Structures are given as C-alpha cells and as structure tokens.
C-alpha cells in the first residue's frame, strides 16, 4: 500500500467540508493535483493545501492507497465520503460524517468521531477507537433507507439514535449507546455494551443485542423468556440473555432484542 500523509495545519473555526479526502479521489492523481482539490468552509472555497501539508506516494488504484491524517481534525467533515476501497487512518479526532455513504475499504479514527459517522454505509469497515457522536450509522435526514451493509465498531460510547433506519450490516458499540438506539430498524445487527432507554423504538426487523444493562425498556416489547448463547447473523453471544420481540407499536413487527444484564 502506498501512503499519503496529510498533516493538519490550522483548522477553521467552523466546519471544513473536505469530501475530497478519499482514496477514490486521491488514487491516480499527482501530489499537486491533490493539494489543489477543493474544500469548502462557510461560503468560501479553498484548496486542500490551505489546511493540510500533503506528502507521500500516490497509488494507481484506490485499493492500494492509504491516507494518514496525522493529528486532530476536529473541524474537518465528510472524510472518506462514498469511499469504495483503500484505507484512511485519522491519528486524532474527526468531525461529522466520517465514512458517510462508504461502500468499501476501511477507515480508522483513533480519537473521537462527530455525528452522522458511517451514515448510510453500504460496505467496508469504520473503526472508531474513541467515542462516536449522535446518529452513528444512521440514514440521511428524511431518508428511510438507512445503512445497508458493512461494519462499524466503536470502542467507546455512542450518542443518540445509533443505527436509525438500519437496513443491514453490523454496528458494534463496546460502550454505552444513547437514547433511541436502533430506532425504525428494519434489518441488520446492532450490538451495544449498555443502553439507556427507548432501545429499538419503532423497529420492525433485525436484531439488537445489549450485552449489559438497559436502563428503561419500552413497554411495547414482549418478553419471550431467557435464552443461552443466542446467535444473530454470523455473530454468537455467550451467556444468558432475556429475549424480547417488538416494537409491537408497529404493525407486524419482527424485531428481536436481547438484553444480557439481569439486574
């Protein structure tokens, strides 16, 4: 793999729209072309080199391209938008929309990621080592067809409405998920260390597994007894779980919710 390193200089005070930071866009271009790729901030247009020092080697194809963002980019948005192959590593925290519409390849954020990370992902892998913001793996505003494939792993916690409209793929949050995790979920798998409330509201399909505690469960879920080592998709979960189905506030709901903690 060939590596391009972007060293962030001063970030603007408000969001920097940098959807050009993607292996699909970088591959096959010269360094100079990459430096001149457009970025937007406020109502102005600038170039990538205004905010990043660009160095390294360009690959011919996206599959062979790795992009390292060497530092915190807490105002940079849309990193890896629609990426189909290659790898991006952010050695710090990123702003909103990391890996939105991504269909392949891999993105690692070593710090935190902002809201809407992994929005409507179709494939590939997004790994956030810190915490994720709200709407992790959700659908775009108004869209009813959410994330449909790929895998999101968050080692920390995630905010509200994780996996909203989830339609396939896997979201794994090791820490706690905020309110309305898996809201309007149709397919796929959402796993969380623990959850607060309204888990699976309006879900009609798919599986949610909460390994630890759910503080308040919705009354529209039916308790179906305790199960040992349940499986969902390719994943197996060791231990005893309380099984629920729901959300029966919806017509013909076939969602499944496993809760691990008995307390």
């Amino acid at each position, binding site marked *: 793999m060939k590596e391009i390193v972007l060293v962030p200089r001063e970030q603007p005070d408000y969001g920097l729209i940098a959807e050009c930071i993607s292996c699909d866009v970088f591959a096959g271009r010269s360094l100079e072309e990459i430096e001149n790729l457009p970025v937007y901030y406020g109502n102005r*247009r600038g170039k990538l080199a205004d905010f990043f020092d660009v160095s390294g080697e360009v690959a011919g194809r996206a599959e062979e391209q790795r992009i390292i963002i060497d530092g915190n980019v807490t105002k940079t948005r849309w990193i890896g938008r629609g990426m189909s192959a290659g790898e991006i590593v952010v050695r710090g925290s990123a702003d909103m929309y990391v890996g939105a519409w991504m269909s392949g390849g891999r993105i690692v954020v070593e710090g935190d990621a902002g809201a809407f990370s992994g929005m409507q992902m179709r494939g590939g892998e997004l790994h956030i080592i810190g915490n994720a913001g709200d709407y992790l793996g959700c*659908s*775009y*505003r*108004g*869209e*009813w067809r959410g994330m449909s494939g790929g895998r999101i792993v968050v080692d920390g916690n995630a905010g509200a409405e994780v996996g909203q409209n989830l339609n396939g793929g896997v979201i794994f949050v090791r820490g706690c998920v905020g309110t309305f995790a898996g809201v309007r979920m149709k397919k796929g798998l959402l796993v969380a260390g623990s959850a607060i409330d309204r888990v699976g509201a309006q879900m009609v399909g798919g599986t949610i597994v909460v390994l630890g505690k759910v503080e308040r469960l919705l009354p529209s879920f039916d308790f179906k007894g305790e199960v040992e080592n349940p499986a969902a998709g390719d994943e197996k979960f060791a231990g005893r779980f309380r099984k629920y189905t729901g959300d029966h506030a919806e017509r013909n709901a076939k969602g499944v919710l496993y809760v691990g903690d008995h307390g």
Partner: protein
Amino acid sequence: MKLILKNGFVYDPINGINGERMDICIQDGKIVEDVENGRIIDCSGKLIMPGGVEIHSHIAGGKVNTGRIMRPEDHIKNVFPKTGVTRAANGYSTPSTFLTGYLYSKLGYTCAFTAAMPPLMARHTHEELHDIPMLDKGALTLMGNNWFVMRYLKRGDVELAAAFAAWLLRAAKGYAIKVVNPGGGEAWGWGRDVRSLDDPVPHFDITPREIISGLVKVNEMLSLPHSIHLHANNLGRVGNYVTTLETMELADGAKPARERQTVQLTHVQFHSYGGDSWRTFASEAESIAKAVNSKDNVIVDIGQVVFGDTTTMTADGPMEYYLSSLTGLKWSNRNIELETSPGVTPFIYSKHSPVSSVQWAVGLELALHIKDPFNVLLTTDHPNGAPFFKYPTIIAWLMSAKYREETMKEVHRAAQRNTTLATIDREYDFYEIATVTRAGQAKSLGLEEKGHLGPGADADVAVYDINPEEVDPGRDYRLIEEKFARTSYTIKSGEVLVKDGEIVRVVNGRTLYVDAQVDESLERELMRDLDYYFKRFYSVNLANYPVQEVYLTNPTPIKVETGVR
C-alpha cells in the same frame, strides 16, 4: 436587441414549417420578418424550435414546498454550487425555485404553468413563482371542490358560478380553471372519496358529473383562453379507464368559445388502467386513444412515468392517502378550508415492478396511438411521473422504437404482456416532437404569441445541436437524449439565456393571469354572497384574500370579454 438566427433547420408546426432551412429574425423581444444590422448567430447544422411551453408541472405552491420540507434526502441528490450568474441550488424531484427555472431553461423551455394552485394558497404560490427565473409563468387555479362552485352549480345558477370563476381567477391571479378529482377532495374532508361520476358529494348533493359539465359551461361562457384542465376521478385505480371514457363524454356539454378543446384531460396515463386487481393490472391506453381520436373537443397530456425515485403531489388528497397506504412511506395531507385537500408522498417507480412497468408503457402507448400530436402533449406531471428534466429521455423513446425495445428488455415482463407498446413501430419526427412539447401546449392554453416562430410571436427560441440531415433518431437515440437536455441556445424575449448548455444570463419572466370581467349587477350579487360566507367559514377576511400584483414578476393580465350577465 436585434438577433438573426442564421441558417438553422426550423420546426414550427403552427406555421407548418417542417425542417426548412431559414433565418429567424428577432427585434425588441419579438419575432419579425426582417431585421437590419442584427447580431448574427450561426445555426447551420442546428435545429430550431419555438421555446418550450410547459402546460402541467407542479413547480410552485404549498404542495411543492411541503414536498421540499418532507424530503431533505431528495435535495442532497442534486446539488449545484453558485456560479457567476446562478445561485446555489439543489433538489431532484423537488428542486428549489431557482433550480426549476435554470433546468427548464437548459431544456429550451421558456414558459411554464404550475399545475394546481389552491386560491387560498395563491399568495404563497406567487411568492414561489416570483423566485422562478428564466420563465414566463402562470397558475392553473383549483375550482373542482370549491364550496361556492358546488353550491352555485347545484342550484343551476351557471351565471353566478361563472361570475365567481372570473372573480377567483382575478383574486388568485390565476390563468385557467383546474379541476382535481371533482367532489372527491370535498368528500375526503369526511374521510371518503367519490368513485364514480354519479357518487354524490357529502352535504352538497352534487355529483362529479354535474361539477365537470357545469365548469365546462362556465369556461366557455367566460370564453377563457384555456379549456378546463381536468384531473379526472379515480386516478391510479385499477380499471379506472371506464371513468375516464365517461368523463370524456362530458366535453360535449358546451361549444368551444375559441379554437381549442373544451376539456384537457391531464396526466391521462394515470387514468388509462384496466384489469380488476393489481394482479391483472393492464393497459387500456388503446381504448382511451381511440376515444381521443374520435373526438374533436378533448385533448390529453400524458403524464409519462420514468423509472426512479420521485415525489408525488396532487390536490387529490384521498389518492395520496391510498398511495401512501400501499407503500408505507411518509405522507402529508392538508385541508385547504373551502377549496381542496392536497397530499404528498414519495414514490419509487421500479423496473422490477409489474405495475410501474405497465405505467411506463401506458404513457408511451397513448402518445403513439393518438394520431394527431396536437391532441397529446408531453408531460410527466412533474414530479408525479418523473422530474421534468427527464423529458429528453421520453423524447428519445418517442423517436426510437429501438430504444423502447431496449428498455422493454430491462423492465418487468408485464409491460410486454399487458400493454400494446411492443407492437407499435411508430416513431415521432422532429415536427411531431415540436408539437407535443410547445406548439400543442400554446394552442391548448390559447397563447397566441407562444409556441410558434411567425412574425409577432414572442422571441422565445430553442436551438439544439442536432443536424436532422445527419442524425437518425431511431438509431442515435442516445444522442437525441443528450442534445435535448442542453440547448445550444435558449433565447427568451430576444435575450440569450443559455449558451452551449450553460446559463449565461438570469432574467425574470412575466406572470400571465386572466382578467375576465362580468356584468356589474351580477358581480354585486356575487360579492354579497361571498361577504356573508367568508365571514362564516373562511379563516381570512375577504379583503385580504385577493393577491396584489406586487407579488407577481412583470404582471401581464390577459383581458377577456365575457358578456356574462
């Protein structure tokens, strides 16, 4: 500004010009016989048509805005940054006002009518029209479920109904009488619909048949430029062609006051379905086309479906509810007091769906079975069948049997089995395309200065980079599709707005509305009645109801002598 469009192939069906190589001269925003020292634009090897005229497109008003609010996911599909002349704009099936103007202009359109304006929403509609640049525009005004219209017609007082219609067009600054699911919109206020021409409307005891034939009479008494513009009952229902055929008979209710039809049945593709369930859903386009061919007072526009994701919006509230209950998608519904009840819901026309595939075929069947192209106008009922910027694709389908065959292979086999499309080998020529996209519309709307290139016409011209001597549309359909999407020049009122597919100048067009006056004593009687009913039933004061001209860009009243007394 003087211009000479030199040496292009001109297609001007109203003046019978079929591909002749000639010069078009322009002076002071009008077409003239000859001009001295004009700027010369070389159009050799190019195709010249009058500027396109859009007769039925939901481009402004409450529904359109509701669609925009409901569908942020639609905006992000089509985003344009600002340029030196245009604003930033977005939207796919619900484009912003500015984008609507830009996109029409790139297609060579210079005039567009928004399809359904509830009079109570007229101010809002005109505020949106105000922000649609590049086009002359107007609004079809909803009257088919209006309490006053239904009351006057029920008691047989056609004169008062005519006086009301004339007043309403003036008040709403509307252009023509639009009728949507007559009676059904009012019944929807009670959770019901009307399913045949003889279903009575709750509390008004009038039937759709009486509303339609009454408004046909009213329209011809007022001698309005356009006929009534009718969205018939039972839109989108299986087996609805029976209702459509019955509705066509009502066009005979009055003699046309002008040289045009008495009824334009709109988006008739949605009204040409046979079968008795969704499983047996089939096309009855041939029966509808036969009826249109045999009548001289009915024309249709097709409301063609193009596959993809769109937003449906109509003043037909019960229909939108029905549609959203089929798809399970988000839905918006409104009650416009005494006037109408519109709805909005997204829809996806899929090539894998038997119903969508048949719908696609039905529209093309209609266009190809109806003999006289002046009787079948090209629309998509934007955005209901597809966004209007899909017109080039439809033009290519009409011009190429091969392209239709190619598409037929990709769609569900129901289109082959349940329609006659595969058996049709007719292909439109450029003359017929010019008819179904501009000349026919202008004639139907009674726009004497539009849709043609004779001296005295508005200097609205579209120049396409197609050489009809070299291009074979039957074979080069991809080229047709590409070239009709971007004009070489779009000229409006003598000004070049688009050059080589890019917008070079942004202007505000005129807003056309009908100013029809009736006898004073009749008007006084009407105002007494309105005063009483507005106080009792409307949420606005009568004095605050009419839209002032200040809301219109370049207001252009069209005076009509009615002689109604």
